[in-house]
Each structure stands twice: as C-alpha cells, then as structure tokens.
C-alpha cells in the first residue's frame, strides 16, 4: 500500500457521547497505523469532542477521548477545529488536546480541500 500517497480526512460531526464519534476515531487510528497521511477535522457538533473535563464514565461510556492523546503514535498530527462551530455553541477553546488548530470557516475548508478522501462521521 506504500504506493498510495492519498491524504485522508476524517471529518467529525457527531457530539461526544455518540457511538459514531468513537467509530470515527477507530477509523482514523487504522489509517494512521497503516501509515496513511491522516488528518482529523472537527466541525458542527463534532467540536464538542475536543472540550476538556468531560466525564464520560459518569454515564458508563468508555472514555475514548483519552485515546486522542495517543494520536501522535499513529502519526496523526493535523487536527483542525472549526471556529464558527465553537462560537455558535458558546464554547471556549479549552481543549484536552494540545495541537488543535482552530480555523476560520474559509481556512477550515481550504484544509479539507487538500485531502483526496474525506469520510464524515
């Protein structure tokens, strides 16, 4: 598969306590572990996945957000959040991840356009 130099974007659009969000992360980790260039995008309700101090275990949901801290081991270094989505929801940029790039809608879309395959969950 090394001949493929496609860039993969996983566009996260579901809120935190949602099976779709965990399965999106699983897909991203697989692309990463197969050495595919992979980026994570958070837009709409998806931005909620980045907010710190969420306590998923309180409602018996496995805290997959902790797994995001391991993204670097999967060579996933590009993480983008849509500023407009944060503002619309009154969310401050208090993330549980360090390397999130918050982008205007235009810049966010520019980044998306640099990818060959885009999956939205």
């Amino acid at each position, binding site marked *: 598969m090394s001949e493929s130099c496609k860039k993969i974007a996983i566009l996260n659009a579901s809120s935190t306590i949602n099976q779709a969000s965990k399965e999106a992360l699983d897909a991203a980790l697989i692309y990463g*572990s197969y050495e595919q260039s992979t980026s994570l995008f958070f837009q709409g309700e998806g931005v909620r996945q980045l907010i710190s101090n969420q306590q998923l275990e309180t409602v018996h949901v496995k805290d997959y957000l902790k*797994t995001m801290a391991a993204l670097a081991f999967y060579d996933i270094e590009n993480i983008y959040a849509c500023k407009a989505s944060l503002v619309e929801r009154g969310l401050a940029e208090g993330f549980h991840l360090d390397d999130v790039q918050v982008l205007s809608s235009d810049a966010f879309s520019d980044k998306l356009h640099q990818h060959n395959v885009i999956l939205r969950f």
Partner: protein
Amino acid sequence: MTTELEYNGQIIPTDKHGYLVDFTQWTEELAPLLAQSDDIELTEAHWEIVRFVREFYLTYNTSPAIRALTKALKTKFGEDKASSRYLFRLFPDGPAKQATKYAGLPKPARCL
C-alpha cells in the same frame, strides 16, 4: 478452554479467549498464569513489554496497535526493542494480542 482463573483462592473471570473480564483485577502475579495458557514463560524481556502495554492502556484507554506500539517503544527503549521482529519473537501469536492478555487488558478489537 476456561472462563476463569484461580489464584490464591480467588476466582478471576476471563472471557472465552482467556482475557480478564475486568482489567482492574490484574496483579503482576496473574501475568505468568495468563501466559501459561499459551505455553509462554515470561522473561524480563517479556515483562518490559507487558508493563509497557499496560501503562499505555492506563494512559490512553486503548491498547496500542502494533505500529503505535513500536513507535512508542522506540521513545522509551530505543530502536532495538522497537522492531516488530523483536516483538514477534517474544510473542509469536502477535504482540498486540498476547502482551495485552498477560497485562490483564481487554482483547484488542479484531479489526484493529
């Protein structure tokens, strides 16, 4: 095939593949017992990986897939111990599968 381990008069439930049902019940004494079912005797080299995998799980709430494992090992132990060849020599059925079992962690997802 058993669905529990007996240790020190205590019954510790395992799933049908031999993994602990509750990872918090694990103690270091259980590791050799878990390895025994695969006919593996744990050496210090095994232990390094088993402890590492458990720590990874406790930090990130997931067991590392092989590539992530080698990458993470490289930072800690250097190139020699971070090759998948080295890991497969220690854990012939797959380091992700076996090291997690002895570390008392859940069976990694089949598709990962």
